[in-house]
């Protein structure tokens, strides 16, 4: 590639970016003026059968990891609120992210990924840390390829990397096969994780009818259509079908 070509290339790029900026600015302006946004508040409930926790016997690094690991397939509150559900709005992908936000931090803590279920955005920084006094390796995979697979020293700051592709990523540790975590990455800001009561809230939604995707690690994915009014906030309660 010659200088000339580089020059040509950068020229093309500059003009393209200029055009894009102008367009985007115009759109933003229009949106800010004419489209009020509202917040969707909701709860996810589950009243089906709750499976027994899986028990895994741990044979290595027991001082840090403990002897036994209980994995709860479904976690619900007293009144049926389903925790650790990822709620996202479909069909809004590509919406410009207003701000990338703080880094998403996943910690290796007592041989558990904290948080075990995380949500993130494209271009957001992912930071993986190791609080344990032992070596961990954090192997994060998208559906098709490794995002990274790195060994982290005991009590180390760890590694940072920008998330580039939307989709579900799995986190595992080849050294401790009982460790498991998930990150759902979106290319739009309209997503939330339910708290221990099953509650969530998605702010800044444009009015209209939207389709929600509701994902749970073991219960799977369901869809629900919601209508966001022009002014008031919307409330929705969604029942996960019983197993």
């Amino acid at each position, binding site marked *: *590639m*010659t200088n*000339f*070509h580089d020059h*040509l*290339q950068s*020229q*093309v*790029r500059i*003009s*393209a*970016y200029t*055009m*894009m900026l102008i367009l985007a600015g115009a759109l933003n302006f229009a949106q800010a003026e004419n489209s009020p946004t509202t917040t969707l508040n909701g709860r996810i409930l589950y009243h089906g059968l709750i499976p027994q926790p899986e028990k895994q016997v741990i044979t*290595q690094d027991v001082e840090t990891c403990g002897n036994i690991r209980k994995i709860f397939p479904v976690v619900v509150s007293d009144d049926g609120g389903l925790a650790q559900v990822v709620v996202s709005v479909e069909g809004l992908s590509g919406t410009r992210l207003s701000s990338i936000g703080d880094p998403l931090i996943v910690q290796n803590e007592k041989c558990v990924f904290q948080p075990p279920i995380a949500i993130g955005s494209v271009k957001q920084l992912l930071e993986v840390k190791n609080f344990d006094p032992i*070596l961990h*390796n954090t*192997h*994060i*995979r998208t559906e*098709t*390829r*490794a*995002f*990274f*697979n*790195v*060994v*982290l*020293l005991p009590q*180390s700051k*760890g*590694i940072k*990397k920008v998330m580039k592709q939307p989709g579900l990523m799995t986190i595992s540790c*080849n*050294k401790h*096969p009982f460790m498991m975590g998930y990150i759902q990455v979106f290319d739009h800001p309209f997503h939330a994780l339910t708290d221990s009561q099953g509650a969530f809230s998605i702010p800044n939604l444009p009015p209209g009818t939207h389709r929600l995707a509701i994902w749970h690690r073991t219960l799977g994915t369901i869809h629900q259509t919601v209508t966001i009014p022009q002014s008031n906030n919307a409330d929705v309660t969604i029942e996960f079908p019983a197993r």
Partner: protein
Amino acid sequence: MPFLWAPMWHFKRPRRLTAFALSVGMVVGFTFGLTPLCGAESPTDVSDSVARGKRLYEHACLLCHGNTGQGDGPDAFYLGAYSAPRPRDFTGGEFKFRSTPSGELPTDDDLYKTISRGIPGYMPSFRGLSEAARWDIVRYVKHFSPLYQEADRTPIALAPGPLPATTESVNRGREVYDLLDCAKCHGPQAMQPGGLYDQGELRDRRELNVLPPDLSHPSSFKNGHQPSDIAQSILTGLDGSPMASFREALTPHPEDIWHLVNYLLSLSQSP
């Protein structure tokens, strides 16, 4: 065939404005009298190269890697019927042999190196093809994944080395081997699979068993057994296999990588 055309543009382009960029490019290009005058590799040259690469690929590579590049060619099953490795899936963009950090795409040089050298046990060397032909194949292999268009493929830096293989260095290497828990996969003496293999935990993305090789055989170092090759594999990891990148773990003492390499190489030299 949209994929075929993609790599002919050497420059990155904003996707949504392709048409706009193209037309501007054409106008400017014609105004200044086109690139061949500047002696550059024109897009036509590149597309010719990809077309040649396709023909070569179909003769030399397809039977294992498949015509879609997914590593599911007619012979792929027999190569790794029930245990890893199966032939590489080029569409996923996940490669074991890279000079780039874990999770990144390989550089063109990395791909060229693998084609030229082969992989002991599994892929023969294609040195029988001319250098130009091998570069043609590199270009064609890259067309299988759109990720190449935007990827930053900067090789990692190695600590100055290799260091002389003194007894102290080998001993320090052995310490590093233990500190980094290498034995979990490679066994206490680096010659027999460790506990994780016995538990059936070492698997690739196809859920095939991955056997950690006996490191006392030079042919076990699939990315070459020169000190720098081994150092690179340890620092970048072998994506797709459970072998992780030890780059962060070795950051406090970067020179340790060469001690570790000296220890591993000492295994194949001892009587």
